[in-house]
């Protein structure tokens, strides 16, 4: 599973996810992409599950790119713990996603296979996504 090799601070505040992702919102490497339509957190487990789902369709002929990384640590207080006594310990890593972000890209497969791969992978993520082809608005 993906996680940073080294971080400056072990714990972070929750923060708010505002606005849209204007950067990283185009298909830049492959032929087809999966774009987020909602904001939210995607955990490293979800990233790995979706990657496995896509790689089953891509097989040896295609190539896949993951365009996001879980930089944010999420802490959890242990079960049956009374309130107080400080912030819990880091439990997992999440990627903060804004609408418009391209999450995965693939090339070397047919459009039908790409759509199938991304549809299966989207079920592993907690946010709404859509299929995207290379090219801008014009």
């Amino acid at each position, binding site marked *: 599973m993906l996680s940073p090799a080294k971080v400056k601070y072990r714990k972070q505040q929750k923060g708010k996810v505002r606005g*849209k*992702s204007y950067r990283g919102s185009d298909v830049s490497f492959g032929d087809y992409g999966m*774009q987020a339509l909602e904001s939210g957190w995607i955990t490293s487990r979800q990233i790995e599950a979706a990657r496995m789902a896509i790689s089953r369709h891509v097989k040896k002929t295609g190539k896949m790119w993951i365009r996001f990384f879980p930089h944010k640590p999420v802490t959890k207080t242990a079960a049956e713990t009374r309130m107080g006594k400080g912030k819990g310990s880091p439990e997992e890593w999440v990627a903060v996603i804004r609408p*418009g972000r391209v999450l995965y890209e693939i090339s070397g497969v047919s459009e039908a296979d790409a759509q199938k791969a991304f549809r299966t992978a989207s079920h592993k993520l907690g946010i709404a996504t859509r299929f995207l082809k290379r090219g*801008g*608005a*014009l």
Partner: protein
Amino acid sequence: MEFIKLEALARESKGKSAARRMRKAGRVPAVVYGKDTDTRKISVDPEALIKALAGPLRVNTPLDVVISDVNSEKKEDALVIVKDHHYDPVTRELLHVDFLSISESAPIRVDVPVVKVGRSKGEQLGGILRMVHRTLPVICLPKDIPAKISVDVSALEGGITYHVSELPLAEGLTVAMPPQEAVLTISPIVIEEVAPEEPAAGKKKKK
């Protein structure tokens, strides 16, 4: 040469509030700039622009923009090409367009898509074709802009790199790249050797 006409309105307003009002009214703020011309703020109808760029040249289509001034009823012509455009990542609606003012007699630089034709011999035998460049910067006159550069790969075998120098270019076109630059590569065919299985009798179990 006749170019596609696009109606535009000159605008005085600037800034995000005015731009948002303009988008709400169904128009897209744009700007025209160039080498020997003054920068002009204009607005265009997004549907008309998309329709004008729907031809084979797509975003490289030279446009004859007719800029009308509402106050003075003056009309001005400018030959332009789309230099840049911004759009909403979710709704894919146009937010802003940059037009570069060009001259009919001066060469310009445009990004032309490279399209592979056919299926290479290398791919048929299991190799993988990789496009190193999907578009190439081409220098040519506005009337000579090609819709695409087609590369016939059907005769290419595995382990081959196709270079810029091998491109079938029409007269008057120059690719602004070194001739030894790779356009596409076909990976060599790797035949995996399956090692014969050893008899299981000699294996020892580890605890």
